[in-house]
């Protein structure tokens, strides 16, 4: 291998509990674990429901709509793969179904993002996974 000038981004690798989630991302679907007992959605993937501790669930597609719970703009370079991107916009998006995703708002400058603004899903494709990102929905 030749020396890379910039390290690659830390792209997630599917593990046993998250395999169905990542597989669906390649088809443009955002799947959430829905508790078969209480109906609560859980994210990230975990064996037990954090409301009722049931271990039963079904992977269920999310609507892809949500709102910005909060946001910030990263100026610090903690990982060399992000050196060219700072400052970039970080956001927690609350999905309509309830769970919250750490993500980025891709179509707006950080100073145009607002708390509670409506957003919708878009995908950033990588080799064996796609990453859920969001854009404004007005």
């Amino acid at each position, binding site marked *: 291998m030749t020396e890379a000038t910039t390290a690659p981004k*830390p792209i*997630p690798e599917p593990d046993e509990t998250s395999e169905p989630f990542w597989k669906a991302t390649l088809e443009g679907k955002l799947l959430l674990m829905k508790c078969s007992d209480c109906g609560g959605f859980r994210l990230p993937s975990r064996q037990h429901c954090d409301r009722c501790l049931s271990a039963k669930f079904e992977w269920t597609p999310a609507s892809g709509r949500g709102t910005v719970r909060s946001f910030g703009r990263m*100026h610090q370079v903690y990982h060399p793969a992000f050196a060219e991107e700072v400052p970039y916009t970080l956001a927690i998006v609350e999905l309509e179904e309830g769970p*919250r995703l750490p993500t980025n708002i891709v179509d707006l400058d*950080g100073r145009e993002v607002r*708390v509670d603004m409506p957003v919708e899903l878009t995908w950033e494709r990588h080799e064996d996974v796609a990453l859920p990102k969001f854009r404004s929905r007005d």
Partner: protein
Amino acid sequence: MGHPLRGVAAISGLGMTPMGRIYKSANELAADAVRDAIADAGLKKDDIDGLLINPGITGFTGGGINLGLQNYLGMADLRLLNHMNGAGSTAAQMVQYATMAINAGMAKHVVCVFADTPLKDGSRTGAAYGGANRLPPRPKGMAGLAPAAGFFGPNTQYALATSRHMALYGTTHDQLGAIAVAQRQWATQNPQAQMREPITLEDYHNSRWIVEPLHLLDCCLVSNGAIAVVVSPADIAKDMAQPPVYIKGMGQGHPGDFSRAGSDWETETGAKIAAKTAFSMAGAGPDDISSCQLYDCYTYTVLVTLEDYGFCKKGEGGPFVEDGKLGPGGSLPTNTGGGELSAYYMWGMTPLSEAVIQGRGHGGERQAKNDLILCTGNGGSLSYHAALILSPHRN
């Protein structure tokens, strides 16, 4: 009748190493602090029958103190021992468990010690906390969503919390900056503080962005060092070497996972739960507090903690701090040693050590009025919280 635990124990000893870029091992720093705390209390090592141990970030990154510290200190036949982890709430928690053990007759003189060495020779100040250097090339599972989106370390989570408070309540940078400026004023009077140059609100605004809305001067220091305290029965502490600092109230509150659906973790913290327990045990309320020593990993942590203890209404923390009441000469002296923002970052031991100094009346030129001191610890992403209400007066 008062609460059965009110005033049963006191802090009788305090040991502090120099703090900052001090390159010793965590065990060595801990031993220095423990030796000095025992001597400060006028005790001998053999008098100690309890040891509670709290590593800082090196408990996660490697090289932190652990149960093995008992052996490094050569403490035999302890009646109480544990390695505790409640993140930044641990220091206050250790004093709580020591107090309960003393009250139960399970131990007499308990040493509570914190030591940390996040700074390595030549390393960047924030390297240990960013965590990016510990990531595998491909993080496993859905936990990998956050780093893939460029979320690194506690700065990110606290920026998001601050941002939401600003959006919901109109909190401003001038208001957050007032906290940074007030604490630096206190630090100029503390010979143990790492940062003693005064700063202005303009300096605050001009300090570089870390994660917007956090400026550099919104964020705490990173320090190597150690602090230990001795907790003793109140009946014995009153005749020991130092003025006793009595434990009048204790409480904890742990909202937990910040990603949980429905959580308001950004603006409603565990302090709300801890406040009820601690104030009720002390038989006091916010109006009775003479000074605050609050965990201040960020300026925002101070602001939201003041709200959650009821010093002002939810959302009014900004206007509350803006007039400078937290600084020298103000009506609510807060973080009188400079805190984690300006003095030293020893997690929960920063507020606790200053509370002991103030409670003894040993604050020198920075001594604040001294009756009831609120001392808090906060950890995780506003996930864990513990509080002590301390006083020079037993009753």
